[in-house]
């Protein structure tokens, strides 16, 4: 278990940012090399389940598939729980709050991995943080267009 908690301040409107991050199948364009495929496999009024095919070659070199359940909890709050794959049990909460002319993006994650990857967890955590920050920078840029 490893916790990750940070805030970013970006200039796009929270509504626009939220629209982009919940357009699940289009998230592939932010990670064209690493995210080979993403598709919605079920959806109801409470949550959406996506299946992703991921290829990473950094701390861990691995190709794997996972399923993620996304649940919108309120205005601009979403929980994404990984329900299968090597990161099973990882949960990411994203919360957007408008503040003056900017948006506070608060990220809270509880990262879980299988036993064999726990030794490199500090590296995974740092890399995961940078990937998330890069993702939100790109989302912000798109939201401003």
């Amino acid at each position, binding site marked *: 278990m490893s916790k990750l908690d940070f805030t970013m301040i970006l200039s796009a409107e929270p509504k626009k940012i939220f629209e982009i991050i919940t357009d699940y199948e289009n998230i592939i364009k932010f990670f064209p090399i*690493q995210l080979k495929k993403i598709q919605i496999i079920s959806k109801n009024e409470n949550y959406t389940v996506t299946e992703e095919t991921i290829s990473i070659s950094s701390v861990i070199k691995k190709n794997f598939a996972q399923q993620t359940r996304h649940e919108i909890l309120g205005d601009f709050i979403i929980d994404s729980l990984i329900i299968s794959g090597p990161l099973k049990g990882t949960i990411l909460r994203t919360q957007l709050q408008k503040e003056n002319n900017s948006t506070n993006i608060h990220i809270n994650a509880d990262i879980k991995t299988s036993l064999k990857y726990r030794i490199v967890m500090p590296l995974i955590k740092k*890399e995961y943080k940078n990937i998330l*920050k*890069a993702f939100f*920078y*790109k989302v*912000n*840029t798109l939201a401003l267009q």
Partner: protein
Amino acid sequence: MSLSTIFNWEQILNNSENIKKEKPFPFGFVKKPFFNEFYEKLVATYPKVDNKWYIPTDMSRSAQKRLFGNDVKKSCFDHEDPTLSKEWNEFRHALFTNEFVEKMSQLTGVKLSGMRHFIFILNKKGDFNMPHAHHTSVPPEQYEYKVTILMYFAKGWKKGDPGGTYICKNEDESSIIFEPDDLDNSMIWFTETPISWHGSRYITKDVMRPSIQFTLQ
């Protein structure tokens, strides 16, 4: 054209700022490495964005890049790019001379043998480069190159604006220890080590950061 009319070696070798020889790794920042007349010509003829430019698909950065002539991404060789100005071709030839390599060895304190790769990088609003190091898990004897250099051609760059290549202690942007604030005729260099962390902050203003990056082996 000789190197002595392109590069201001007195400035480069004797007036480098912020050179840290030990911690966390050797790097330096040089203002006005080019003589002004030549610099202005490079700025005026910096390649325009066209179909030779590409956007890297790396998830940890956003930028536009362009190769020189028939170079490939991981290596370069001494030749001409007929689509570029006389000055850019003269500058490129200069990088391949023994004199240039010897002077850069003198500046960095690293014995260098020649050029490895060269690229134009144009950053604008929305671009960034997350903290990274090039050789985190490679033994030194297998390094592709020993020194990385960035040169900036951003006229009127406003002091304090994000966008210059910073040096940091680790892979977290909060660990920045140096960030160049003058990108109008300046250069930053650092030696390659497993902890040579660097990056550039997210650009929030409508500005352009024309630059080049090259490495020496």
